[in-house]
Each structure stands twice: as C-alpha cells, then as structure tokens.
C-alpha cells in the first residue's frame, strides 16, 4: 500500500514534470522566435563603393531602411566590416584592417545627413567598425531610410591572400539609444573588391607616302595618285613654262601625299638630278652645256627672259584631306609658293613636328630657256623621301 502510494505520488510528480516539459518544449521555439522577431532586419540595405580597386581610397554610400515597429526609439547605428560573414552577432574575423577589411582610419562622414530629421553625427571608427549617433533619439512613424556617405575609406588591399577578387562583409546594427547599447535591428551586406581589367591596344606604326603626277580625287589617299611624268612642254626664250598652266598636252603637276602617325614628326626631302639632255656634262651656270641651270634664289616666278636659263619647283598649295584641323606640314620657305631647286644634295621640302594627317603637297615646276640653250629633250628625276620619327 505504502509502495503503491509512493508509486502513485511519484508517478504524479513525474507526470507533472512530463507535462511541464512538454509544454515548455512546445513553447520554447515560440519564445525564441518571438525574441528574434524583436531584432528586425533592416531592409533595402546596400553599401555602394565608388571603386572596387584593391587598396584604393573610395567613398562608401551606406543605405538601409529602418523598419518602424511602433514606439521604438532610434538612437545610433554601427557598420562593422568583417571578412568571415555578414551575420550580425557572429564573431567578426579578419586578418588585418586594410588587408581584408577596409581601413576606416582616414574615413569621414560626408555632408550633414539626417535620419527622420535628426542630425547624424560622425562618431568615428573603432578598428573595423564605424559608428553614427543621432543627435537625439527619434521615433519614426514609418520605415525610414538611413543614408550616409563615408569618404576616405581605403579598400582592402588583399595583401595576405593576393587575390583582388575578394569578398568582404558589412554588418549593420541599429540601436534604440545614442550610446550603441540596445540593439534593435540589424542586417548584413556583402561587398567585394575586384581585379581591375587592363585593356591594352597597340597602334602600329604607319606611314603612307606616295608621289605621282595625277590625283584622280576619287579617294583622299594614295590609292588614286598615279603617274610620274610632268611635261613642261616646249621652251622658247623669253618665256617661262609652268606645269600648272598646261604648257603641253600634259596637264599634270606633281603630287606628294603623306599620312603618318609618327608622333615625333616627319620630313619630306627630295633629291633632284640635273635637268639635262641625256648624257650631257653639266658645267656650272653655263648656258650651252645642255643642262638647265638651277633656280638658286627662291622667287615667286621663273624668270621670263631670253638671257636667263633656269628651272625650279614650288609647293603651290598644301591640301589637307585629314580630319585633324589645320596643316601639320610646314613647307620649307624656299618652296612655299616660290620656285627653287637644288640638285647637289638631298633637301628638305616640308616637315612636321607631330603626326601628319593625310596632307598633300601640290608641286609645280617651271623653266625658262636662254637664247642659246641647246636644243634637246631635258629631263630631271626627282626622288622624294618621307621619314617619320616614331
């Protein structure tokens, strides 16, 4: 009987314990869930960094919406940067500030932001975190956006792991007081530095140069420059013939076109052989040696005199077919709308100090014969050389 009683009382106790345990077990999740529900996640959270370059100084635009839960005050905010995860409340780990989490030591709050009309103060950084305290607590009547910009943040340099494509995290905490004591909301944000892409291109050296007696003007390049004979026609004393005024059925003049990306400039030089009858031996300024004398003194015209014998070349115009405004080539003064010729040596005709964007020298030739200039077919070959300095 005693055993039965004991057994019966003990059984009741056990039964009650079991009931309480079951009830507790049943309610515990609800208690826990209720507790977690108090620390609501901030929404629309983001941290936009102005550059993802590792080690670069950047602006961090921090933004999130603080939910309105009724009568809760909002007093301060904290942003904590971690390398391990974005989970608020978890232990924040990193190798070193500035290595795998941003260096906030040179950061500062930009402008004078407010939250629900209350000034947000820059409370400064503490190693991996940055604090913002409101001037006073405030109780928003609805979800309110917290938005600030931190300038002078130095991105993680990723020195330790050597990988610039490095993810790091920020944890956002909202406190109901201005002293960062009572956490009421939080959230996590993931960011990453990124490898910069270096795009390289090489513009190859280019120099297009052509000489001809005909420019078909069908294309503003060398493709329509052709021919190589300029005929000055039949010379008679006391009259000068010019290629440009069609002294014969040949209406051609000379064209020398240059286009180059030689950054340090280019030159066009020429070398002319004597204007002579084939096989003649030229002798100075003699009129009877079957060689026309050179026009040694530059002048706007070829002399029209039966007592003069000379020939020369002039650059009568510079055609700019390029897209770069203005002429890059400068014609040597002796040839700039003036007739002159040198047969003794290679001579500068035009030059530039930079690239030459598709320009063409129009070359005129003129000659006059002395009364006693021997009859014959006279010719000179001019070789033009363009040299770019790259």
């Amino acid at each position, binding site marked *: 009987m005693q055993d039965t009683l004991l057994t019966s009382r003990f059984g009741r106790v056990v039964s009650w314990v079991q009931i309480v345990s079951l009830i507790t077990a049943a309610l515990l999740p609800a208690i826990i869930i209720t507790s977690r529900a108090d620390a609501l996640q901030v929404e629309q959270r983001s941290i936009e960094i102005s550059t993802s370059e590792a080690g670069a100084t950047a602006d961090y635009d921090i933004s999130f919406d603080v939910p309105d839960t009724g009568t809760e005050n909002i007093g301060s905010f904290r942003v904590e940067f971690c390398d391990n995860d974005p989970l608020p409340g978890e232990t924040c780990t990193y190798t070193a500030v500035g290595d795998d989490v941003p260096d906030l030591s040179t950061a500062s709050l930009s402008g004078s932001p407010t939250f629900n009309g209350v000034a947000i103060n820059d409370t400064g950084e503490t190693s991996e975190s940055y604090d913002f305290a409101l001037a006073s607590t405030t109780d928003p009547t609805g979800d309110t956006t917290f938005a600030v910009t931190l300038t002078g943040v130095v991105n993680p340099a990723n020195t330790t792991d050597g990988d610039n494509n490095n993810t790091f995290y920020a944890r956002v905490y909202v406190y109901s007081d201005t002293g960062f004591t009572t956490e009421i909301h939080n959230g996590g944000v993931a960011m990453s530095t990124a490898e910069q892409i270096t795009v390289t291109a090489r513009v*190859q050296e280019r120099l*297009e140069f052509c000489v001809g007696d005909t420019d078909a003007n069908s294309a503003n390049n060398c493709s329509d420059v052709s021919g*190589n004979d300029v005929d000055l026609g039949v010379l008679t004393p006391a009259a000068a013939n010019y290629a440009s005024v069609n002294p014969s059925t040949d209406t051609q003049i*000379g064209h020398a076109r240059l286009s180059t990306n*030689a950054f340090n400039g280019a030159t066009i030089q020429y070398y002319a052989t004597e204007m002579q009858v084939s096989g003649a031996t030229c002798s100075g300024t003699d009129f009877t040696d079957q060689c026309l004398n050179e026009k040694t003194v530059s002048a706007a015209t070829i002399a029209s005199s*039966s007592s003069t014998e000379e020939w020369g070349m002039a650059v009568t115009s510079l055609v700019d077919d390029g897209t770069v405004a203005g002429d890059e080539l400068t014609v040597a003064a002796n040839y700039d709308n003036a007739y002159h010729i040198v047969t003794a040596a290679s001579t500068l005709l035009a030059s530039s100090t930079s690239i030459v964007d598709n320009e063409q020298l129009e070359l005129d030739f003129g000659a006059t014969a*002395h009364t006693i*200039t021997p009859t014959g*077919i006279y010719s000179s070959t001019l*070789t033009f050389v363009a040299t770019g300095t790259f």
Partner: protein
Amino acid sequence: MQRAIVSRLTAIATLLSLLSFFVLPTHAADLTQRSVAPASSEPLVATEYTVEFDLPGSSTLGSISVLFCGNSPLPEEPCTPPIGLDASGAGLITQSGETGFSIDGSSTANHIILSRTPAVTTATTLSYEFNNIVSPQTANQSYYVRLATYASIDATGSVIDDGSVALSTAQQLNVSLYVPPYLEFCVGVSIVGQDCTSANGNQVNVGALSPDATATGFSKFLAATNASGGYTVQVAGTTMASGNNVITRLNSPASSQPGSKQFGINLRGNTSPSVGLEPSGPGTAQPNPKYNQLNNFAFTSGDTVANAPTSNDKVTFTASYIANVDDELPPGRYSTTLTYICTGSF
C-alpha cells in the same frame, strides 16, 4: 638518398625561378625617337639607310636587330619580308652613340643583326648607317622596320628595348621639257634694244651720188641661235644699178675712193666715211673678216658677212653701205635689193 637529391633539385629550381624573376625583364621598353631614313625612296635600287633611335635607359647591349617586314611593324606578328628588299649585301658605314658593332654573319636578306661584345650602354642616341640595301620593288608602298636591342651578341634571348618604324617607297617624278632648235633673225633699218620685234624699215636711201663725196647708208640685222654649230649670215644681191648702168662692186676690201665707181659694205663703225656701228649685243658673233675691216668695204653676192661658230646670243650688226661714182656714170635711179640669209648649224 633520393629524398636528398629531390630536395636539392627543388631548392635549385626555386632559386632559379626567383633569379629569373629579378633578372629577366618582363616587358621590353620602347625605343624612342626612332627613325629609319633611306637615302632614296626609289624602288629596287641599292641605297643607304640610316637607323636612329634613343635608348630609354642604360642596359647591357650586345646586339641590335634591324628587321625589315612588309606586312606589319608589330613584333608579335610573323614577319613577311618586303618583296625585292635585299640587305644581304649591306655594309655598316657609320655608327655613333654605342659603337663597336659589326654585321653579324647570321644576318639575312631582310634581317640585319649588329653585334659587339656586350657592354653597358652610356649613350642615349644611337645611329647606324648602312649602304647597299636594295629597297622593295613596289613604288608608293609602305614597309616596316622592327628594331630591338639585346644583351646577347646575336639578337637572341630577351629583348631589352624595341620599337618599329614605318617607311615607304615612292614613285619618282620625271620632269621633262623640250628646247627646240631656235634661231632668231631679223633685218631692218632700225632695231632697238636687241629686240627683233622693234625691227623696222627696209629702204636705205644713200642720197644723191656724186664724184666728190661718198654716199652712205646703213641697215641692221640681228641674229641669235641655240644651234650648237652656230650660224652664218650671208648677203645676196647685186651691186647698185640703174638699168644697164652699174656701180662697180668692190670685190675685195678697199677704202672709199670718191670719184671712182665703188659699191661695198662692211659691218663696222667706220670713220672714213663716218658710217655704221660696231656690232653690239651679248653674243659673240663677229663679222666675216672680209667685212670686218674698218673703213674698208667690199661686196660679193653670196658672201658670208657674219658668223658665230657656236650657239650665240643676240648680236645686232650694222651693215654700212658706200657708193662712189665717177664723172661718166649716167644719171638715173640706182638701186639694189640685198637679201640677208641666216643659217643655223644645229
């Protein structure tokens, strides 16, 4: 034992890899102010080429590569030799900046390798002139030269610095003209300023003939030619006559003798009688000796009165005429027509 060998090899390999990291350049720098200037742009002609460039910094220099390509200046592209270009006979004729180079035997038709004992560079601007390089065969066409410097003596191994240039052949321009055979000749009573366009008149009136005085007159002619054999001026005609009455011509030069029948000419500025002018003008032609005697006159039809042995500039001659008569010459109008003929010998 094997573990020890493996360990040592690993250590050596590690050391070598570290050394290569520090010693071998990872990227060649650009040669600056680089240019290649051919003396002539004429296709397929052997000419001189001057190669110039600046070194970006000091380095050990043992060889320089000068590679001619027809397709591209980019060193990473395969090089297609320009058609016709031939540098196999090139010679290094001048060098400045870094010197001591000679053309390496491994050079080819489109690749010149300059080689020397490697030495640290001290110069900035380097210049090398080559001769006997045959330019590409097509006119008005771009081609390229790739330049590179090496520490090695044969342009092998890592490039220290490099850079390319573009250049172009060009069509030569032939300027031609024709100087035709030229002979300028005019006759007149007056010619001013060695200018045939001013020639005027063809009547010479010697006035009234008298046994007491010599009748005189003159005309002019101008001649010039580019005939290499010069020119001759002949006179053709008859002596002065009036019907069957003639004034005897002077067959050979003689002085004027009033009272004798004489007709003659010369090309001088005479004093007795005072008639005529000396030849004038830039040319050097002279009267024929028969008509070049002061105060002596003669006339034979067909005679050469003036000549130039070579091409000759303008000379204006004054032909002086004298006529003397005796007492027996019948009155009348005496005249003659003289024709001057200039012939060039081209």
